[in-house]
């Protein structure tokens, strides 16, 4: 899996296509079937996906940071800017402190992004066999990825290259 970060709000489709090209450059040696071009398919009630089974993506934004995850298998990603929050009012999450809250929140959110269920499913606990990776990035953001166990690499992209 590759995580692409950009410290800006960029057009989603351009971001995905731009980063997919990088993903393909890097991963072609392992998967020669990666198509040279991809389209993003958006169907009612389903999460957006590429028009190929060779790669999957998921996107998340929070207050100035955008994260795109691309992998050979389905994934869900959530990024949240860590900020002061009255986490006690979220009765469906029992957190000991702010850091714990953001870890649990991003975990649940990355799971509903993985399944494509959407925000409505946040009240449910993810299943015990779901696999997550947590990262603290860029001083003040927490990221969680839900996917089958795999290597993760990360790159920071320039907004000017994308838009």
């Amino acid at each position, binding site marked *: 899996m590759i995580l692409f970060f950009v410290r800006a709000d960029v057009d989603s489709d351009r971001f995905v296509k731009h980063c997919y090209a990088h993903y393909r450059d890097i991963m072609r040696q392992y998967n020669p079937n990666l198509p040279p071009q991809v389209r993003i398919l958006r169907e009612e009630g389903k999460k957006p996906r590429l028009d190929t089974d060779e790669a999957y993506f998921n996107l998340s*934004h*929070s207050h100035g940071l955008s994260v795109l995850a691309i992998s050979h298998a389905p994934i869900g990603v959530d*990024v*949240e*800017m860590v900020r002061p*929050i009255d986490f006690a009012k979220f009765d469906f999450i029992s957190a000991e402190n702010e850091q714990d809250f953001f870890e649990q*929140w991003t975990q649940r959110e990355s799971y509903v992004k993985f399944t494509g269920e959407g*925000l409505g499913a*946040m009240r449910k606990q993810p299943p015990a066999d779901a696999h997550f990776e947590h990262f603290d990035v860029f001083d003040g953001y927490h990221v969680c990825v839900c996917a089958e166990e795999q290597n993760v690499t990360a790159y920071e992209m320039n907004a000017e290259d994308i838009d």
Partner: protein
Amino acid sequence: MVFEKLKDLIVKQMGVDRDSITLDSDIFDDIGADSLDIVEMLMDVESQWNIVVDDSEILGFRTVGDVVKLVEQKIAK
């Protein structure tokens, strides 16, 4: 007026310019809300109007107008 009160909630949560909020404003792309903002605002909406918003009802929410419509439907009951 639901839209006016909703604008108050959005400004309080997001700090955006009140005049920039329209019924067509996309909650994610225009208002800049992330998932945590959305859920916090929904909880504020629930307590502001004393309604319950079911998890399934927020599927497909994109604009401020979508939220106004839902609240108006619920308080009409």
